[in-house]
C-alpha cells in the first residue's frame, strides 16, 4: 500500500508538467458528460412535466382504441353518461383542438393544444391557479394561457386578441397547473365546440373519483356499459404513457451520442495516459529496478487516469447543471402532436451517472497504458 501511495503521489505531482495532454483528457471527458447529462435531463424534464400536476384519485376517460386526446371522442350523450357516474366527485368533459402559434425562438408555426374545459376542470387539476388576469367567463370567447406556453409562443400577452381560423379570442388570464396543461390554452368547452363545429361532442373526460379505491368499479361500470366504448386510466398512468415514447427516444439518442463521444474521449484518455507513461518511462523503470512491484505501477497509472476522468466528469456535470438545469424549451409530443413546454431537470442522480461514466472512461483509458508501464522492458526504460 505504501508503494502504491508513494508512486501515485509522485504521478499526481508530475501532472502539472504534463498539463497540456492531461487537459485534453479532462476536456474530452467533460464534453461527454455535459452532452449525456444534458440530453438525459431533457428526457427527465419532459417526463417530470408530464407527471407533475397529476393526482392519484384523478381519472382520464378516452374512446377505446384512441392513443391520445387528439383522436378520442364522445357524443354528448356518452359524455353525460360518463360524467354522471356516481363514483365521481368532479368531472370535466373537454374538447381538444390544435391551433397554430409562432414559436418565439424560431418564428415558425407550432401546434399548440387548445382545450375547452368544463366548470370542474380547474378543481380537478389540483395545482391549477391563475397567476395573472382572471379565469375566462363561461359562454364568452375568452381564453387563458398556460405559463409555459406564454414563454414559448408569440402573441400570448394578457389583453391580446388572438385569431384562430375565423374566430377571435381575447386572452384574459395566465395560469399554472404544474403539468402538461402549462403548455395549453383553455377556453369554455361549449364555446370551443361552437367555434370548431364540434356540436355537443367532447374529446376526453377528466374526473376526480369520490374514493380513490373506486377506480376499478368506475372502470367496470363504463367498460361494461354497451352504450360506451371507452378506456379508463388513472391520470398519472395516462401521462406516464404519453411521455414514454418521447423520453425513450430522447434517452436512446442521448446514450447513442454519448457512446460516440465517449469513444472519442476514450481515445483522448488513452493518448494522455500513453503519453504520460511514455514521458515517465525512465522513472517507472527506475522504480521497478529499485524493487517496486508492477501492481503498484498499474494502480498508480490507473489512479491518475481515473482522477483526470473524474475531474472531467465533475466539471461536465457541473457545467450541465449550470447551463441546462431549468432551461425551458418546447417540443412536439409524439402522441398528441402538440407542443409540450418543459424545463430540463439536471438531477443529482443524472450528475452521478455522468461522473460514473467519466470514471469508466478513465478506467478503460488507463488500463492499457498502465499494463504497458508495468510490463515494458525495464532495461530499455532505464535508458529512455
Amino acid at each position, binding site marked *: 500500500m*505504501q*508503494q502504491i501511495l*508513494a508512486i501515485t503521489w*509522485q504521478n499526481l*505531482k*508530475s501532472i502539472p*508538467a504534463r498539463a497540456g495532454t492531461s487537459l485534453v483528457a479532462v476536456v474530452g471527458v467533460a464534453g461527454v458528460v455535459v452532452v449525456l447529462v444534458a440530453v438525459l435531463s431533457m428526457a427527465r424534464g419532459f417526463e417530470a412535466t408530464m407527471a407533475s400536476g397529476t393526482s392519484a384519485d384523478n381519472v382520464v376517460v378516452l374512446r377505446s382504441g384512441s392513443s391520445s386526446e387528439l383522436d378520442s371522442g364522445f357524443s354528448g350523450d356518452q359524455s353525460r353518461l360518463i360524467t354522471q357516474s356516481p363514483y365521481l366527485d368532479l368531472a370535466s368533459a373537454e374538447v381538444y383542438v390544435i391551433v397554430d402559434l409562432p414559436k418565439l425562438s424560431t418564428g415558425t408555426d407550432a401546434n399548440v393544444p387548445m382545450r375547452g374545459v368544463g366548470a370542474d376542470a380547474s378543481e380537478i387539476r389540483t395545482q391549477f391557479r391563475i397567476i395573472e388576469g382572471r379565469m375566462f367567463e363561461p359562454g364568452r370567447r375568452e381564453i387563458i394561457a398556460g405559463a409555459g406556453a406564454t414563454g414559448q409562443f408569440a402573441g400570448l400577452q394578457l389583453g391580446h386578441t388572438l385569431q384562430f381560423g375565423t374566430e377571435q379570442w381575447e386572452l384574459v388570464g395566465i395560469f399554472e397547473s404544474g403539468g402538461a396543461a402549462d403548455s395549453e390554452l383553455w377556453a369554455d368547452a361549449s364555446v370551443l365546440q361552437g367555434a370548431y363545429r364540434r356540436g355537443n361532442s367532447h374529446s376526453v373526460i377528466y374526473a376526480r373519483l369520490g374514493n380513490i379505491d373506486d377506480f376499478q368499479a368506475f372502470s367496470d361500470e363504463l367498460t361494461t356499459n354497451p352504450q360506451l366504448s371507452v378506456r379508463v386510466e388513472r391520470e398519472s398512468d395516462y401521462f406516464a404513457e404519453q411521455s414514454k415514447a418521447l423520453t425513450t427516444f430522447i434517452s436512446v439518442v442521448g446514450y447513442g451520442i454519448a457512446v460516440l463521444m465517449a469513444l472519442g474521449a476514450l481515445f483522448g484518455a488513452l493518448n494522455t495516459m500513453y503519453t504520460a507513461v511514455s514521458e515517465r518511462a*525512465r*522513472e517507472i*523503470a*527506475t*522504480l*521497478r*529496478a*529499485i*524493487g*517496486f*512491484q*508492477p501492481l503498484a505501477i498499474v494502480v498508480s497509472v490507473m489512479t491518475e487516469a481515473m482522477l483526470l476522468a473524474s475531474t472531467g466528469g465533475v466539471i461536465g456535470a457541473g457545467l450541465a447543471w449550470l447551463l441546462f438545469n431549468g432551461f425551458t424549451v418546447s417540443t412536439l409530443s409524439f402522441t398528441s402532436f402538440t407542443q409540450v413546454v418543459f424545463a430540463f431537470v439536471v438531477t443529482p442522480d443524472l450528475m452521478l451517472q455522468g461522473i460514473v461514466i467519466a470514471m469508466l472512461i478513465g478506467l478503460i483509458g488507463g488500463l492499457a497504458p498502465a499494463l504497458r508501464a508495468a510490463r515494458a522492458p*525495464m*532495461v530499455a526504460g*532505464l*535508458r529512455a
Partner: protein
Amino acid sequence: MSDSIVKVSNIVKHYHRGREVVEVLHGLNLDIGRGEFCALMGPSGSGKTTLLNMIGGLDVPDTGAVDVNGVRIDQLNARQLARWRADHVGFIFQFYNLMPVLSAVRNVELPLLLKKMSASERRQRAMTALEIVGLADRAKHLPRELSGGQEQRVAIARAIVSDPDLLLADEPTGDLDRDTANEILELLVTLNQRQGKTILMVTHDPVAAEHASRIVHLDKGRIPEVA
C-alpha cells in the same frame, strides 16, 4: 575464489533485432568476491551492461546460472525478483534516474518505502545516507536544483540507504566532467573500503576503472582475460 558474492556460470543471452537473433553473452563465467570493487570494461556492444543487468536481476539469462549471495536469481519470478532487488541491490545509473518531482531526501527514501519502518526512521536513514555522500545540506532541493555531480551523489545515497549487499553502477561517471567524475569515484572507493560494499561498475573509461581493485575485460560477450 572462496568467498564469492556473485557467481555467474555459463550464461548465454540472445536478443532479437528485427528478424535477426544476436547472441550478446556466450557461455560467460564470472566470480566476484565479497567486498571487491570490480570494474567491468569493454567496447560498446561487448555485453557489459547486459551482464550487469543479469547480476542485478533486471534481466534473466536464456541459459546458465546467476547466483548472488547464495540465491539463484535466474530462477526467481518477476515478483520475487522485485523483492530481491529491494533487499539486496543498490543501482547507480549513468543519468542518475532521480524522480524530478521529489526532493533529494525523498528520492533517497524511495527504497525504504519497500521496508517496514516508520516515517521518522525512514527520514533519519535517508539523512544519514545523504551525510555519507556529503549532501545533507541539500536534502530539500529538487534534482533540477542540483549539479550533475550532486545528482549522482543523491543517486548513490539512494543506492546505499537500504544497506544492500551489492552496488551495481552502470557508467556512473559517463555524464560528468573529469573532476566531478573523480569525486564520485572516490566516493565509491570510500564506500567499498570503509563500508565494505561490494561494487560492480561498468565503464569504458580506463581512468575510472583504475579506481577499482579489479578490472574485468569483456569482449564480444566473453571474458578473454582477467586482469
